[in-house]
């Protein structure tokens, strides 16, 4: 690991202070667990002058329930999220996804907000300064070409947060705070399909909390992640499934994907499965439908062919587990 440059570290106690400190810095970044950002800083990908630490802000550290609603602070750790009783009860996929992030020590530091705002990843990008320099850098950082798809002008760096696809199943909203105050946004609208600039956050905005409505009791959900090792690794493909079955027929179905494109997203055109019996043929169709939309590119050491196929296979496996 390379040298961490000199920088200022701020410890605000309120969201408003955090936003002001960020605004006052010539180049600042919000810091939560740091497991993504600090590695990028050490690798010379970015060199902020100030870091604004978010994990001492009480408002951002709470999980609160109201009737039919839940709010989860952006600084809630992934370990807390994975262990939270109401989250496990109503949003099983979210708790499972949080529990699948990296390894236990990362989850002790890493936060919900950090996982949702994770930088996109690519094997040509997550390398040392020497490495990237020797490779003429890349579109996403200081370079002119994309090594994944040479000739193209689009960056395919993959979003690799585990929790987002699970939250998308429940139409989660994110609460943001910035110099112009607070706003709410559908989580899906936090992302755009551009590996270079995948977050729609405004200048100086931070993620304060996530809000969701509890689904009906008939709804089940689960998350599964493909990776070579059972710990540490980012998802080669991450799949969240929400499903409800009544009278042997599918009455509700959503599939969220991560790790296979620059943004997490819900698989489209699943309406055709509503009302169908959940038999083997149906599950194989679901697998193929998911596979068709999981257009992984060569952004990881593991070849994209596998990531596309395993995304479908995991959706099939998860769905099958509910019958």
């Amino acid at each position, binding site marked *: 690991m390379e040298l961490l440059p000199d920088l200022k570290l701020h410890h605000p106690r309120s969201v408003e202070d955090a936003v002001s400190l960020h605004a006052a810095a010539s180049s600042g970044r919000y810091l939560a667990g740091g497991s993504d950002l600090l590695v990028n800083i050490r690798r010379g990908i970015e060199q902020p002058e100030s870091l604004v630490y978010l994990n001492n802000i009480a408002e951002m550290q709470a999980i609160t329930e109201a009737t039919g609603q839940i709010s989860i602070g952006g600084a809630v750790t992934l370990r807390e999220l994975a262990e939270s009783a109401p989250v496990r009860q109503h949003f099983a996929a979210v708790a499972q996804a949080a529990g699948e992030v990296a390894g236990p020590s990362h989850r002790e530091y890493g936060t919900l907000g950090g996982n949702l705002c994770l930088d996109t990843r690519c094997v040509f990008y997550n390398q*040392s300064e020497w490495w990237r*320099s020797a490779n003429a850098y890349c579109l996403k950082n200081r370079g002119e070409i994309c090594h994944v798809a040479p000739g193209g002008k689009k960056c395919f760096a993959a979003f690799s947060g585990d929790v987002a696809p699970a939250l998308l199943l429940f139409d989660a909203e994110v609460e943001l705070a910035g110099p112009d105050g607070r706003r709410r946004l559908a989580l899906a609208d936090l992302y755009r399909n551009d590996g270079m600039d995948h977050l729609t956050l405004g200048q100086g905005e931070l993620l304060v909390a996530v809000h969701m409505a509890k689904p009906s009791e008939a709804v089940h959900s689960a998350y599964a992640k493909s990776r070579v090792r059972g710990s540490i690794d980012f998802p080669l493909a991450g799949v969240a499934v929400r499903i409800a079955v009544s009278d042997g027929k599918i009455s509700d179905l959503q599939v969220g994907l991560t790790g296979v494109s620059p943004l997490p997203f819900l698989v489209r055109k699943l309406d055709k499965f509503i009302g169908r019996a959940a038999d083997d043929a149906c599950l194989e169709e679901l697998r193929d439908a998911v596979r068709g939309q999981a257009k992984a590119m060569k952004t990881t050491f593991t070849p994209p062919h596998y990531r596309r196929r395993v995304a479908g296979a995991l959706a099939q496996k998860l769905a099958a587990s509910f019958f």
Partner: protein
Amino acid sequence: MNEMTPVQSVGVAKPLVDGPEKTTGKAMFAADFQAAETLVGRILRSPVAHANITAMDTSKAEALPGVHAVVTEADCSDTYGVLPIAMNEWALARGRVRYRGEPVAAVAAVDVATAQRALDLIEVTYEELPAYFSAEEARAEGAVLLHDDKPGNIERDAEFDLGDVDKDMAEADLVREIEVKCSEVCQVQMEPHATFAEYDGARERLTIRPSTQVPFYVHKMLARTMGMAEGHIRVIKPHIGGGFGSRTETLQSDLIAGLLARKARATVKVVLSREETFITHRGRPESHITMKVGMKSDGTITAVDFTVQQRGGAYSGYGIVTILYAGSMIYGLYNISSARFQGLRVLTNTPPCGAFRGHGTVKTRFAFEGLIDDMARELGLDPFAVRRANLLAAPTMTENDLLVNSYGLDQCLDWVEKASDWQARKGKLPANKGMGMACSHYISGASKPKHWTGEPHATIHLRVDWDASITLLTGAAEIGQGSSTVMAQCVAETLGVDMSRINVVSSDSALTPKDNGSYSSRVTYMVGNASIDAAQNLKARLIEAAARKLEIATDDVECLGEVYRGGQQDQGLTFDEVVMEALAGEGTITVKGTFDTIPESWGGRKYRGAAIGGTMAFSYAAQVVEVTVDPYTAEITVDKVWVAHDCGKALNPLAVEGQVQGSVWMGMGQAMSEETGFHEGLPLAANMLDYRVPTIIESPPIEVGIIEAADPHGPFGAKEAGEGSLSGFLPALTNAVADAMGVRACELPLTPDRLLELLEKKARDGGANSDRGAA
């Protein structure tokens, strides 16, 4: 007093003697040393894979305030390399770079930031040459030569043709072939490379602490590279965070630290990043193997015909030895007479490979054990039966003249068969579960040293002074494997004293006798024997002293370790009293013990390089692996491993168990998830996220059976314990997957993507796998 017996130290589970320092964090590793005004050493590495260096200007870096030294090839007196016949590397590239990341210059500066700025100010002009990242490209006609004296970019073509392969193959009832491809793997020892170098400008002396397995070789190469008298260099080995072969030769960072310290006339510390440690490499080469085996219907092997091609990287390193091991070690495990081998070690524009645990033997073993498993299935034989049909009977010499003096493979097979309940469970597991087995072996040290000097293989000094403690001085490098503990046990056992009397001083060239270092599993066997010899010499001196004091004949002295006496009724003398008597009139006692190999163990002369494989003793191992495969994702879970290892005598059963488990585990990484990879010569996985060493989650229960087929020359019968169980895991795993899913994996690591391809291919082919052999 009558009940007194010598203290037993051998065969007893002992914690490692350097455990307390390590578990409390007090142990000093190379990067932990920090003198006042220690300069930071940093290395400028080539951004290109193959190029002539047409110009280099370091003047701006030298002029930068805070920079104390800039070194280049001009500061190097000579090449270096681990094999005397293949020293073709420069500590800093001279005239040409041959892989991305090769060191071209280095700086010593007051801090990291200044050192980094200085590197950025060094101007190097490269004239690029065609670069070859695969063995095939490098061998292609018309390819530019990496080294002018290596035509065809071949480091070494090795071959032998023993017995009558064609005749014996024709007499087989079944002949089958296999083709396997194994990715390159890296050791990924816990501690990145680091060197702490102090230069005494007034006396022109260098004191250096390198993270190495071979302080003696580093010493020699420092003298050669720096043009210094060997006697003006002191090499002190600090604590070492593992090696597994990555430090079995001198590394550039060791030499660069010395060069910088001398030029700066100061103290310099060079600590490599994990990425630089990966680039330094010296791991196991990517290999392509074809193998044909002939078998009788009862499982008897009639002949083996095989080829091995290794992508060796840009420099010679250990290459010649690695390719020779890949051939010679087909022998020594089973009773094979006829074998033909063609090996090619190819030079490519990738980081140089080296000697990785199980040196040279692993991928050949993978091909062989997979192939005979399939042949067994085809012949309707149990995998155990096929192995048992081919056992050796010790003592014997193999067809390529390797000495097999002790042989516990039969007992290893019995143990794992019983422990895994193989006969009752094999073939009866639920869907997607399977069991596989395989065998392996390894040498207990190479019987011919690389640097032949006529000296004994191992020398130990024991010093006893007025405090009655015993100082064991050894050049053998304790690198975490427990060598210091084993030596202390051997000495304590021989003397019958408590181990707490013994202090081990390991690897300080100013104090300890020369030793070749910790590699090829030589230390327990060779240095253990030297330790016993030294202890016997000391014991003779103490018996003489006791006899003098007790006024009896030496033959009448009964040595009970902590007490020496003349008879059962004699109160006797305590060890301290005997020592006092021994020192009287003579002062501090220093005795020596040595060990040498016997000529019968030196390997053969039937072909060029036939000495490679020659050893005093082979360890043997068998293992059974049980797996579950996820049919959706093709992820493999290793549920359990049973492994039996014949180490002759478990001097320290605790350490043996740890070494065997570690070997299995390391084999598991190579079999399932670990591989390097390159993008035009840039390492794609030079970090611990993308280079996938297994985590504790992947680690299965590993049940170890210790088999003790005592070796007649081994220390208390012992042989090696740290490598032999590695290579068997790879084929045992793929044999288990074949059992579970009916597909034969021929490419490693067997990552989920590779297995899914095999499963999908099988499904496409209508369930009948077209890959030869699998059920």
